[in-house]
């Protein structure tokens, strides 16, 4: 492989990694607070992708407006999902396994619902960006991917600020270290958890919109979340910064490996490496030491 090719593959990998990072952060946020793997995040991504499509195609043909609307919509959707399927079992003191089961069921429900209702058509977003790539000499980088990467960096900064400096952030941190005690100190646990789902939902909304714009909407668009979950695991479950770094590493590793050994062998190498990594370092790349930990 020559140098230019490696550099282009690195650019491809970093941009793809931005997508994974965005998903890893949304996924990691809920893991932080409630300590379960929230697969229903994929459902939020799917619904938001459709919402963004219908808004941009039929209501406001404007990128910025529909993007913000979809992000807010995703936030409220997250809150709704929490209230409908997680809060009732939390109040009953159900084991974590049940949260996991509910989250997987919700993701499957959303997928099947969209498959039956709108699965027989394709939904391309309007062409908001005419020239979709930035060319720098021989190299190119996709604008949508760059947007995803910048947004995940921006969101991480904002989240970092909220978590460290605001009351709700302090409450989130308190709840994430012990879900029962803060209520004795006058913290409204229900509200804090709703906020966590709102933030994660906003990320899901952003992810859905950008994925839909980059790849066309279909009922299975949320299944890309698996790569985000893998990134979250590598990063150290619950460490948001670790998730972003792991997302980028995963993207770059995939791009380089696909070019060298092919797409069929790449997942084998990637997943084997993850098992090896977790055997050596079960807490993931950043583990407990990372500062942004809600």
């Amino acid at each position, binding site marked *: 492989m*020559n140098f230019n*090719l490696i550099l*282009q*593959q690195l650019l*491809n*990998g970093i*941009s*793809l990694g931005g*997508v994974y990072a965005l998903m890893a952060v949304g996924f990691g946020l809920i893991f932080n607070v409630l300590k379960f793997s929230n697969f229903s995040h994929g459902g939020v991504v799917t619904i938001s992708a459709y919402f963004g499509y219908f808004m941009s195609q039929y209501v406001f043909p404007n990128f910025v407006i529909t993007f913000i609307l979809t992000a807010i919509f995703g936030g409220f959707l997250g809150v709704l999902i929490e209230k409908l399927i997680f809060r009732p079992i939390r109040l009953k003191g159900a084991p974590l396994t049940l949260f996991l089961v509910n989250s997987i069921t919700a993701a499957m429900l959303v997928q*099947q619902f969209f*498959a*039956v209702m709108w*699965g*027989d*058509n*394709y939904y*391309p977003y309007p*062409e908001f960006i005419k020239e*979709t*790539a930035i*060319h720098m000499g021989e190299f*190119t980088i*996709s604008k949508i991917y760059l947007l995803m990467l910048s947004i995940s960096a921006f969101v991480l900064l904002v989240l970092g600020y909220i978590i460290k400096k605001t009351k709700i952030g302090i409450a989130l941190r308190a709840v994430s270290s012990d879900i029962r005690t803060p209520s004795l100190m006058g913290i409204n646990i229900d509200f804090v958890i709703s906020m966590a789902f709102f933030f994660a939902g906003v990320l899901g909304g952003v992810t859905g919109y950008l*994925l839909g714009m*980059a*790849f*066309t909407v*279909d*009922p*299975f668009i949320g*299944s*890309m979340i*698996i790569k985000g979950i893998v990134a979250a695991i590598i990063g150290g479950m619950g460490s948001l910064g670790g998730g972003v770094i792991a997302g980028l590493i995963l993207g770059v590793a*995939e*791009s*380089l490996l*696909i*070019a060298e050994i*092919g*797409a*069929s062998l*790449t*997942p084998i190498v990637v997943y084997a490496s993850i098992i090896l990594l977790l055997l050596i370092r079960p807490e993931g790349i950043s583990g407990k030491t990372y500062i942004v930990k809600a």
Partner: protein
Amino acid sequence: MNRKIFLILLSLALIFGWSSALFAAPQQEEAGPIKIGMYADLSAGTAQWGTDSEKGARLRIKEANEKGGIMGRKVELIIYDCKLSPTEAIKAYTRLAQQDKVAAVYGSLISNTGLAVSPVAEQLKVPVVSRAMDERVTTPKFDPEDPENPGPVNPYFFLLQPSAFQQAAIIASYAIDELGLNTFAMLYSPANAYALYLAKGFEHYVKKRGKTMLGGLEFQAGDKDYKAQLTKIKQLKPDGLFICNYITQNANAVKQARELGLETTFLGNNSWYKPMDDVAGTAADGGYFPHNIAEDDPSLQWYFKKYEAEYGQEPRLHSFSGWDDVGFILQAIEKAKSTDPEKVKDAMEATRKFEGTIGTINIDPKTHRPVGLKMSILYFEGAKIKTAVLKYYPKEP
């Protein structure tokens, strides 16, 4: 002792009773409507193809019933959703054959489900008509390295369009003989039997014609980003790039190839048809692909009108498939003068000169695939699909 013998005999009787009930060719009742089965993707990623083929099928049945039915009996379509899943397809086919006791089945358009149902059809002996292009669906021992010897045929499976190797030869021949291309690369998902066999067929034809295959780059079924593969292809500098997957994958591939600044002629498969123009936009411009029908084909205008009058929308590829494939089944039942699946199968095998919207179908009894079927070559210009040649056939098949 006597009781033991009795129990053994009873068990044997039950086993034989069950197995004969399971494997006996199902018989349809001689009165009442003629039942035709269908399993299709009514949900899942290929749902548009499934629902379009259902509409075409229902239109054909409606017309047959308006003309008094077949052999004086009404025709009824029983349809199940197989959701692009091989196991769901097997379940649906088994139910159609054993419970619904249909005369024949119109199978899903997808090769992966066709491959799953093919051996079951050989056991349950109710013929299936399908668009599954992978050669192994009708000739299970087909070896892509030796395509001239297809091996034994599955007597109960029929293909009603050019197979993967035939379609690949058509577009490859067009690229070599009409566009003058010499070097090629491919991008496909090996998990999709249809894409895999198109790629194998394309490579086989290119090499047979003495041209160069620079590389076949693969991607995984759920992947949406192919930039790593396309970057490598860019470095190979092929004259033509064959992209042969499903619509969204093809659209994503051409969009990303354009982003990377790939300068090559895109060559596609029959999934490049509508709504690829909406999904890919101008990124597909300059791409050529083979297709069973062309919109400006004067001989098909009657069907456009008929379909639009019925559904208020213009027909897409598989709206034509549904019409043709059910028509083929109905003709076989009529010729067999029976709804016995065995006799219907024999009539299908003997079919010559069945006039479909796709062209004249002559079934090769050795492969159960049509012989000599031509395809139109279409291309993209300004995000619109246009016709390059009507009814093209490879210079050297």
